[in-house]
């Protein structure tokens, strides 16, 4: 009886099919913001589908929701997706969503002008074991720097992006690797200086910061919904490139609705310019991410990501 109710009530409200989607109120999740602001997903899926939005502030929480079966489709960083998959989450990456969109900034009094100056400094990332953390460790490795826990001199701290401005102004942190719009805001409001632009962080900016994942069970049962979702997603990516101003307005509206705060137009513009919305996935960089995560000690073994990446390739 309970089981019947749980599955019954969870999947359908009345006769409608419920699709639950998780994403963050964040510029790197731009395609989701645009899609929901302009009701593009709802229009394409039709009136027989009820769309439920769930917003999260960090990947691990969204991953928990996916594992618990409370979210069907999620916009998430590749690292939480890999971590969840390694632990046994039954999910697949079905599309890319955004590449780049993160910058390395340093405080004005930190004396940091280039990556090599990070030695002996405190560098903040939004969360340990997230995409920015892994990117930072990759940069350190390229410059022969090490973090304190590995016997090096760079202290990596996890700080919520919203707290970074304050900690910069009090010289509690020297640098930060943050996704947009935080990077632009730190430059504008905390007088932080860009050390690495979005396309200098890694691989000319051609690395995923947001991907779309879905529960395999959902993919198997509702292939037509997934197909439509990805069609809309590809349209949004094209539209954002063709009509950037309209797309920005939509993002701004959705962010205002979700967070109650409005981003200044110029902040939003420069934040969006650092992102590259996409529908492509580059399996090689995702595998590279997994290797870095393993080298950072977050993963106990080098995972085989075949299952995670095995969703039928784009036509």
């Amino acid at each position, binding site marked *: 009886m309970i089981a019947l109710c749980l599955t019954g009530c969870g999947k359908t409200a009345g006769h409608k099919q419920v699709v639950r989607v998780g994403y963050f109120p964040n510029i790197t999740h731009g395609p989701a913001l645009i899609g929901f602001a302009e009701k593009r997903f709802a229009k394409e899926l039709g009136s027989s589908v009820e769309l439920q939005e769930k917003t999260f502030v960090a*990947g*691990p929480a969204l*991953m*928990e929701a996916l*594992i*618990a079966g409370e979210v069907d489709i999620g916009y998430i960083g590749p690292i*939480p997706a890999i*971590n*969840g998959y*390694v*632990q*046994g*989450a*039954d999910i697949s990456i079905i599309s890319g969503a955004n590449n780049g969109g993160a910058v390395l900034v340093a405080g004005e009094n930190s004396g940091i002008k280039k990556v090599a100056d990070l030695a002996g400094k405190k560098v903040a990332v939004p*969360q*340990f*074991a*997230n995409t920015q953390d892994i990117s930072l460790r990759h940069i350190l490795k390229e410059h022969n720097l090490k973090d304190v826990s590995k016997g090096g001199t760079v202290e990596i*701290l*996890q*700080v919520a992006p919203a*707290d970074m401005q*304050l*900690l910069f102004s*009090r010289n*509690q*942190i020297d640098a930060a690797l943050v996704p947009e719009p935080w990077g632009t805001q730190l430059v504008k409001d905390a007088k932080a200086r860009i050390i690495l632009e979005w396309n200098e962080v890694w691989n000319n900016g051609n690395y995923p910061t947001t991907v779309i994942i879905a529960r395999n069970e959902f993919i198997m049962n509702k292939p037509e919904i997934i197909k439509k979702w990805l069609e809309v997603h590809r349209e949004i990516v094209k539209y954002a490139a063709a009509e950037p101003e309209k797309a920005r307005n939509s993002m701004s509206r959705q962010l205002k609705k979700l967070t109650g705060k409005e981003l200044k137009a110029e902040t939003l513009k420069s934040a969006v310019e650092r992102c590259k919305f996409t529908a492509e996935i580059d399996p090689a960089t995702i595998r590279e991410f997994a290797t870095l995560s393993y080298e950072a000690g*977050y*993963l*106990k073994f080098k995972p085989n990501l075949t299952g995670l990446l095995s969703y039928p390739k784009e036509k």
Partner: protein
Amino acid sequence: MNARIRRFLFYLLLIIIWELVYKAGIWSPILFPSPFTVGKTLYNGFVDNSFVLAITCSLQRLLISYAIAVVIGVAVGILMGKYKVIDETVGSLIVGLQSIPSVVWLPLALLWFGMNEKAIIFITSLGGTWTMIVNTDTGVKSVPPIILRAARTMGAKGTKLFWHVVIPAAVPSIITGMRLAWAFAWRALMAGELLSSGTGLGQILMMGRNLSDMSQIVAVMIIIGMIGCLVDNLMFKKVELNIRRRWGLLIV
């Protein structure tokens, strides 16, 4: 001996039930790890030293904070017990402050001290201080009148009466306060570590969450519970028992 065997069997039974629930497959293994996986995580964590480092770090913070809490708590408690003015003024404030969970102070602590040890030590000390004050105060105030009368008959007065009779008589209550303060500080520390940065048990637990590694979360929970249990059993229960026996509060 008998009690130990019973306890052992009880825990064995718990683990068996845990394994059975796991085997029943109600929740997916990623949500509900098996005792074996958790055991493996515990083993690996101790072998690669990461758990030992975290425990050392957490206990270090706890000891510093606890010392601060006990010193401030006993001092303020004695003052409150001795001087009516302080009791009427500071006392009312303490009652109010006691009802604020110490983790609520974290945002302020982060602003005042920054993202570092000091902030966590601050909230952990707060966690223990209020209880320590209240218990010391109660101990000082509730010295049995018969003891006071006897002491007075024997000529003890003023400060002498206070330091040689009232304070020793308050010791059982102070010890209870120390035990409670330890538990409160331990909780405050975990809350602080979960929300802050650095190393420690709370941080390892959060890392488990970041990695979607439920077995790490459960392993850290077990460690936290065991440390709390060990400290309570090995230190405070014995001290408390001894004091009670000395004061004739326990008839053996």
